[in-house]
């Protein structure tokens, strides 16, 4: 058992998932948008970072004869930034659908369908992003520079880099949530009409949240693809979104630390942790099914026992001025007003 490899894998998976989960929480926990298509932003980021490092599809670097529509070889931080830009733009496009003032659960179903359809388009159009086989041999960033040449040494370097990015994202998210903008987002969640009456442009706020959340998802995908060096539709099935939701719901929506706890439980313990245990009955496919079933059961249990999550959203100052009936309302509207 290679403990170094195990540790770096778990760190990178947990932190990248956490960045995505924060992006999702910005939409779900803070603004109350149920975006079931979140995984397509992670995928968009991963694909963008991939084609921005793989080089032109007709160039000599493409030894594997992979098909994709365009490519470039950009130096390190640019593919990640490009991924964030693409994720943000895609977020704006998908967000336009969400502007139709649909009821929350109806909107959620529509988003689920959007997610599945993005998958079908990539699968059907092989020339776009290499269809079902996906892209492979994606170079890791900064690997050729210096004496970082792969192996566990590079793994530690990359997990360190990932953690640094995670801390920066966490700090930015914290500042954002404490800012007037964060307050406006919570106002949209609690009562959109009232927020509008107070002069907030709720349509613009929703679009902004779609774009910001989308670019965080894309950043997460871009970092992950630099580590696993391959990306295919198998990595972003529609169900993957619900692992992120599970992390947010179990941990505590609207609370950055809570989401981090949730991400550790779901991705660190359930998804990655067991991969290095002796396989159950020697059957890795069965293990995978059991992981998903466990995630589903955890969502059910946490919705029943503690719908506000392990570490609930902090009650903001001044909330004692708000009528008690309102305060009972749970963050993202998982509970009805009573």
């Amino acid at each position, binding site marked *: 058992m290679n403990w170094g490899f195990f540790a770096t894998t778990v760190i990178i998976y947990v932190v990248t998932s956490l960045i995505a989960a924060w992006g999702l929480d910005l939409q779900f926990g803070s603004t109350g948008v149920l975006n079931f298509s979140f995984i397509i932003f992670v995928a968009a980021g991963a694909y963008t970072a991939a084609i921005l490092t793989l080089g032109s599809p007709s160039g000599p670097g493409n030894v594997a004869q992979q098909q994709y529509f365009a490519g470039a070889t950009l130096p390190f931080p640019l593919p990640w930034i490009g991924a964030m830009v693409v994720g943000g733009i895609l977020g704006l496009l998908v967000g336009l659908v969400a502007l139709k003032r649909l009821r929350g*659960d109806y909107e959620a179903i*529509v988003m689920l369908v959007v997610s*599945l*359809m993005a998958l079908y388009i990539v699968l059907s*159009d092989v020339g776009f992003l290499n269809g079902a086989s996906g892209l492979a041999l994606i170079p890791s960033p900064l690997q050729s520079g210096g004496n970082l040449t792969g192996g566990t040494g590079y793994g530690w370097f990359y997990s360190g880099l990932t953690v640094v990015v995670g801390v920066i994202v966490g700090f930015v998210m914290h500042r954002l949530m404490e800012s007037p903008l964060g307050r406006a987002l919570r106002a949209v969640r609690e009562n959109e009409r009232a927020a509008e009456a107070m002069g907030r442009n709720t349509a613009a706020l929703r679009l902004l949240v779609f774009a910001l959340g989308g670019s965080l998802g894309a950043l997460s995908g871009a970092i992950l693809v630099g580590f696993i060096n391959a990306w295919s539709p198998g990595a972003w099935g529609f169900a993957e979104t619900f692992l992120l939701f599970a992390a947010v719901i179990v941990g505590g929506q609207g609370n950055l630390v809570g989401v981090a706890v949730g991400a550790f439980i779901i991705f660190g313990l359930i998804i990655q942790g067991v991969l290095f245990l002796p396989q159950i009955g020697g059957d890795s496919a069965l293990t995978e099914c059991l992981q*998903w079933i466990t*995630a589903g*059961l955890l969502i059910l249990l946490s919705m029943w026992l503690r719908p506000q999550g392990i570490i609930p959203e902090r009650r903001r100052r001044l909330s004692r001025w708000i009528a008690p009936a309102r305060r009972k309302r749970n963050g993202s509207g998982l509970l009805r007003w009573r």
Partner: protein
Amino acid sequence: MSLVIEAAGFGVVTAGVVALAAVGFTLQFAITNIFNVAVGSQLTLAAFIAYALNRTGVSIWYAMIAAGLFTGVTSVLLNRMIFQPFLRRGTSFFGLVVVGIALLLIIQFSSQAIWGASFVSYQFNAGGVFKWGPLLLNRTSLILLGIAAGTMVAVHLLLTYTRFGKSMRATAADPELASSCGIRIQLVTDATWFLAGMLSGLGGVAFGMTLGAFSVSMGSTFLVIIVAAAILGGVGQAYGAMLGALVVGIATEETSLLVSSAYSQVAAFIILILVLVVRPEGILPGVARYRGIAT
């Protein structure tokens, strides 16, 4: 041109299969106000239960009925044991979608744990091909079409001519008023979940038959088509779902003919997006309007 008509023939068969599940989905929403996202995994389970029976030598038609009944009963149990307790505990309809997702994961991956992720197919005799002008359909397709048409007529008769159908429509329109008029809401709800489950179970098996080979991933494919049909027709409207299924069925088959079979699902997507942009409440907006789905 004759190819276009032939594809339209296949489209009508697809529409029949889609309509079975879409009518169940939409009726259940109209009466209980719950979007049951788990329906995709439920019909996968139904398809695999029929497969397990079919493999032991049971005729596919009996297997289909058994799978339909099984899905009907499990739907009632799901509602009684999961959805209703959550509702009583104060979970919002928004939260119930998350509950539905959890159920979807549990059912889908339990099926995968039992039957694996590989493709399987039913053993049945497709029967001779009937030629009628440019239309070309085999006997199984005709029987499926007959089942779908018969079910649609039965649902129509149930909703319009029976006392029970009237109480279902009354519950859909206003549960509190219906309750104070002496309608037993619990009974209506149970019957609706049973009917919806049974229809989606039949739809799942029929979908497996028309696909030829299927795997546990069929649930998500089918869910998209069902949702597209239901939303296009106006969610909560049984007749709307039939109409929506017809449009989606023909559109997917014509797309496979005229563009590429890989894009047939994308046609359903484009229809859905267009409907959402132009008229989010669907063709028949009644239920969507008063439920506050889209304004």
